[in-house]
Structure formats: C-alpha cells, structure tokens
C-alpha cells in the first residue's frame, strides 16, 4: 500500500484537515504528509528519499520545513498534517538547512557529470541551482567507492554517485518484492550493494534507474547513447501488453531517433511504474528497424501512388472472395475505418481472421503490471468486430483456415510489435504463398517482397487514437512526427481510397 493510495482512500472518507502552507490555506485528508500537501498547492519542497510510490524513509534530511510552534525544523515527508498547522517552506532557516543538507550530500559525490547519464535530469544538479548555490567549504579528500558495477541484466551501479537515499532498497522490498539490494558498511563508507548471491534480474529493473535521483543506477540499454537534454518526450500509451500503461517516449527530434520509454504517473493503471518488456517498445519505431517504402511485387512504389494501387487491388476483388487478417495491435479508430471502408468499396463483408501469437497465455498476470496478452488492443478488436457483426476465426502460426477459405484477395494488417509474435517469418512465408496478398506492417524482411503489395504502417508513437486495455478502459495514443516524413497511416490511405471510389 503506497502513500498515494492511502491518500486516495482517505479522500473518499472526506476526513479533511485544514492548514496553511506558505500563507496559502489548504485542505487535505487526514494522514497526508506536509510534502504532499505542499505539492498540492504547488510549493515544491526539495527531496531525495521521499517518493510517492514508496514508503517514507526520512533519511535524506533535505525536505526541512519550518512549522510554527516547533522549536526545530521538521522533515516534510514524515510529518503528518494537523489541524491549524502553519508551515513555511521558504523560511530562511529552512532554506539554510536545505542548502547545507545538500552540501553534505555532495561531500563524497564524484561530480563526474560529464560521463554520467543522469546529468541534465539529476536532482543534485537541479537542487544545487534551486536551493544550493553555495561555495563548497569542504577541503577533505573524497571517499572513493567502486564504480560501474554489473548488478543485473539491465543495470549498472556506480556506488560513488549514490547519495544513500534508499529509494532503490525500498523499491526492491516493496514493489518488486525481490529484496536484492541493501546498504552496507557505516558512516561515509556506507554503500549500496547487492545482497550476496543475488542479482537484479526481475522485469521491473529499469524503474530503479527512474527513481534513482542521481546517476547511481544507469540503464544498460540507454547508457552513453544520447545526452538527455537532446531528448523530447511524447506522452502516450505503451503498446507492449494489454495493461496499457501511461508512458512517455523520448526521442531526439533532430535525428528522428527514439531512445527510451519512461512511465508516466497514472493511478488508475500503472501507478508510477512500468516493466522492462515495455521499455523495449521504442526499438521498432526507429528507421533502421522499419521498411520505409511500399513495394509492389518487390519493386518500390511511390507514396503518392499507393492509394491508386490499393484501390486497384480492392476493385479487382469486387464480387470475389476477400479475406481480412487482423492483428490486435492497431487502434480502435483504425479497425473501424478499415472494416467500414473495405465493406463500402467491396460491397460485401470480407471473411475476417484474427492473427494471434502462436504461443501465448493471455490470462497470465505477474501481479504488478505485465500481462500475458502481449497485444495492446485485444478488447478493442473484439469490440470493433462485434459492432460490425462479424464472426472472426483465430489463426495462430498455422494459416490452414485462411487457405481453406481460398480467398482471391487477402488483406493482412500485420503486427506492429513482431517481438510479441515470436518468429513471424514462418507465417509470413506461408502467407506469401497465397495468390494475392496486401500486407500492412512495419517489418523489414525479404519475405515481404513476395507479397503483391507491401505497405509500411505507422507505429504507435506516430498515431493518434485509442486502445482498449484488459479492463476495457480507453487508453490514448498521441502522435509524434513520423520518422519517415512521407509515410501515410491506415487512416490516410483508406480515407483517400474511399474518396477515389466515390468520384
């Protein structure tokens, strides 16, 4: 049970406490800490160890506030609000305390910002500019500690940069429940380390990089790839599984290259976290992993002519057998448009198949966030088909049912995240043996050249739309500029095709 959940539950009981922070009156539920109450009115109290998703430790001593009637300063994170309390976060005494607490944190910090991946989003840097700005009074030699330790499949630990806030230890104990980290030794020789015989190998390890306020934990995947100040984020939804976590995708706009995903706070779905599987969701978005130009029987087709080609294929198949193969990785809007426009162009409803991963366990759930259904929009596809009154057959790996239908034209909306489908090469091979296939997908392989028409599609970070998650809750996607400037989405193509038909 986290603080915030506590707060949310308490809010329902309407047990409010009135207090004043920095002269502004605020009403918060009973049991709220001063730091949370201050956050509510926009007074930001600097803090390292407090995290809304974890328990309170009160070890960093940075969130010092002045409370009227209290002879000494109090820490904002572990002081609960009381009726009529008067808190000053910008009091001169509090400011001094925050400043010198920060200097203590930096006593043994190596200041290797040039080689540290956290630089640019480091709380030490931010707070130095906000509340620090002192001239160091420390003359002593810094204590040296081990650097660049291999602590897990995805993580590298630098114990020198660590300020011992214990966020990672609490995360391991409370969220991932693996308890593989601890603080060892005493005094200025204290350091974060692995408990002997353990390694951080769970599916939530990148969260340690996120919650680490300094650069002690760095991600192997992102390490040294790009400095964070070149990155811009787009808030969207993770397409990795049916949970649909709120995430932001970080990309370098100048290079049109995506580098990482980070969770966004969303109490209804993912809280503060996301899984390591979801963190890989930027890889298929980059130009090196995608096909950029449509192909007709293996020869490139100009984007301007793609609507023509599509209309040609569809009109040729009028009054013939048409099969539509859908994968549960497109948005609700795309399903609706594709189903309705194909029906309108053909005049009849095509036979619909749902292509799902060969081996999967859709009901599996790891107890935190990650679900066995690695398709973002299973519910959305179900809903779109039931709204269109279509009964669909599921195919997995083996496309016999599709072959038996003996279609003259097969339209395939291939998977965007092929990782979820294991090896799709075999299925693509058997699809390519069908007579006339229009394939939409991101894949970059030689097999796709054998289709009569292969069209690259936009990826999740380039689309506007919604997914329905496992709970049928709509999850919003927000579009970023596409990696290939000319690319057309399914919506553009089918809308243009409809227009062409009507003319």
């Amino acid at each position: 049970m986290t603080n915030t959940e506590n707060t949310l539950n308490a809010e329902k009981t309407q047990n409010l406490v009135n207090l004043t922070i920095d002269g502004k009156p605020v009403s918060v539920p009973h049991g709220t800490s001063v730091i949370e109450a201050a956050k509510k009115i926009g007074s930001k109290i600097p803090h390292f160890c407090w995290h809304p998703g974890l328990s309170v430790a009160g070890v960093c001593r940075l969130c010092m506030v002045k409370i009227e009637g209290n002879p000494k300063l109090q820490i904002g994170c572990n002081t609960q609000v009381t009726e009529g309390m008067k808190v000053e976060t910008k009091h001169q005494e509090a400011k001094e305390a925050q400043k010198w607490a920060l200097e203590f944190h930096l006593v043994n910090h190596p200041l290797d910002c040039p080689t540290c991946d956290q630089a640019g989003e480091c709380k030490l840097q931010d707070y130095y500019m906000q509340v620090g700005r002192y001239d160091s009074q420390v003359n002593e030699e810094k204590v040296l500690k081990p650097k660049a330790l291999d602590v897990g499949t995805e993580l590298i630990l630098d114990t020198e940069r660590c300020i011992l806030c214990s966020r990672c230890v609490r995360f391991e104990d409370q969220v991932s429940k693996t308890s593989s980290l601890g603080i060892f030794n005493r005094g200025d020789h204290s350091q974060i380390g692995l408990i002997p015989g353990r390694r951080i190998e769970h599916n939530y390890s990148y969260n340690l990089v996120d919650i680490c306020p300094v650069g002690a934990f760095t991600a192997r995947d992102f390490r040294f790839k790009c400095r964070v100040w070149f990155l811009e984020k787009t808030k969207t939804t993770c397409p990795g599984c049916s949970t649909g976590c709120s995430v932001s995708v970080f990309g370098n706009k100048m290079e049109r290259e995506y580098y990482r995903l980070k969770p966004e706070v969303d109490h209804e779905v993912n809280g503060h976290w996301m899984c390591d599987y979801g963190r890989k969701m930027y890889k298929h978005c980059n130009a090196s992993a995608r096909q950029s130009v449509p192909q007709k029987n293996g020869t490139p087709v100009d984007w301007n002519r793609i609507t023509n080609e599509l209309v040609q294929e569809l009109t040729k198949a009028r009054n013939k057998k048409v099969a539509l193969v859908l994968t549960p990785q497109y948005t609700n809007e795309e399903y609706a448009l594709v189903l309705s426009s194909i029906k309108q162009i053909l005049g009849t409803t095509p036979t619909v198949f749902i292509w799902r991963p060969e081996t999967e366990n859709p009901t599996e759930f790891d107890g935190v966030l990650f679900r066995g259904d690695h398709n973002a929009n299973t519910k959305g596809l179900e809903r779109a088909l039931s709204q269109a009154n279509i009964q669909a057959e599921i195919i997995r790996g083996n496309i016999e049912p599709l072959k038996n239908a003996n279609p003259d034209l097969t339209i395939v909306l291939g998977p965007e995240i092929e990782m979820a489908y294991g090896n799709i090469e075999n299925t693509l091979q058997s699809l390519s043996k069908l007579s006339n296939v229009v394939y939409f997908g991101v894949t970059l392989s030689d097999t796709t050249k054998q289709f009569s028409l292969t069209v690259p599609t936009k990826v999740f970070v380039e689309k506007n739309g919604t997914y329905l998650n496992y709970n049928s809750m709509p999850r919003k996607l927000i579009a970023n500029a596409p990696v290939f400037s000319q690319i057309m989405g399914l919506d553009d193509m089918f809308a243009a095709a409809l227009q062409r038909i009507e003319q």
Partner: protein
Amino acid sequence: MAYVQVSQDPTKDWRNGYLLTTLKGLGYTTKVFLRQFFRLEKTVTKQWPDEEPDYSSRFKGKHFLTQRPDGRVRCTACFLCATNCPAQCIKIVAGETAEQGIEKFPVRFEIDILRCVFCGFCEEACPVDAIRLGPEYTMAGLAEEKWVYTLDHLLNRPAIREKIGAAQLSKKVENEKWNANANH
C-alpha cells in the same frame, strides 16, 4: 532654426579640390614605392608560403583533440561541445570501456569543418580541455576532399605534433607552470 547651408561649405576650398588631392596621393605612393624599391623601408606584405605569418598563440585555427600522457584521447564524450556548438558541426558517438579510470570515450568524433564558424565555444565548453582550436590556419582544399575531420585526424595529425609538441599538457598544468615562472 539652425541648419547647415551646404552651398557655403567652409571646407570647400581649392586646396581640397580634385586636382591637388590626387597629386598629393600620387606623390605619397611614389615616395613609399621608391623608398621600398631602394630598401630604405620594410614592406608590409608577407611572402607566404615562403614566409610564415606570426599569429598570436591564442589564434583560433583548425581544431585538434588533446592526448593523455599515454597518447589516448583526453575526450570523455560528454557532448558539451556538441551541445554548445552554434553551427551544430560536431558529431560524437560515445563508447564504454572497462579500462581503469576511463568509463566513457569517443568512438567517433567528427567535425564538419564546412559548417564550423571557429567561434571557439567548443573549447570553452570542454570540461577536460580535450578540444582546442590550434595554430594551423591553412585549411584550403579541393572540392573532392573530405571535409569531415575524423577522430584520427583531430588527434594524430603530424602538424599538431610539430607545433604543439608531442606532450600536450592540460591547461591546468600549463597555468601552474606559467604561475611558477611568474612568481620567480
């Protein structure tokens, strides 16, 4: 209302007229020509490339990357020069090593010299004195030449070894030396 009557310009005089000033100028030119012709006066023109111009030691010319005492690149691939560069001509790809004391180093370090404006901001931004604008001023070349300076070119070109010396001290050591000399 005060205004100047142009027609009554006080400087308008026969002494400032066309003929006399032209003759005056021509006379001066002839004087200098004759003095220099008979070697009574030194000419200002440098006979480059036979004669090298003496630029200040602070001259901002062609970039080079400094070396550690053992010859490895001093750059830690922190991207501060690339961030600070107003012409966006620096491209760095960082790599990781397990070597003691070095965690991050540039796998590629490229300067697109056609974009560079020689402002010296890269030198200013560098926290480890790894990039400097050197004393070389001749950078002309043919169109088909490569105008992107690679890591090897920036680090190991012979001209730098000649002019700066094989041992490239850091600014800190240089300053200490200079201070020590100044104190004596």
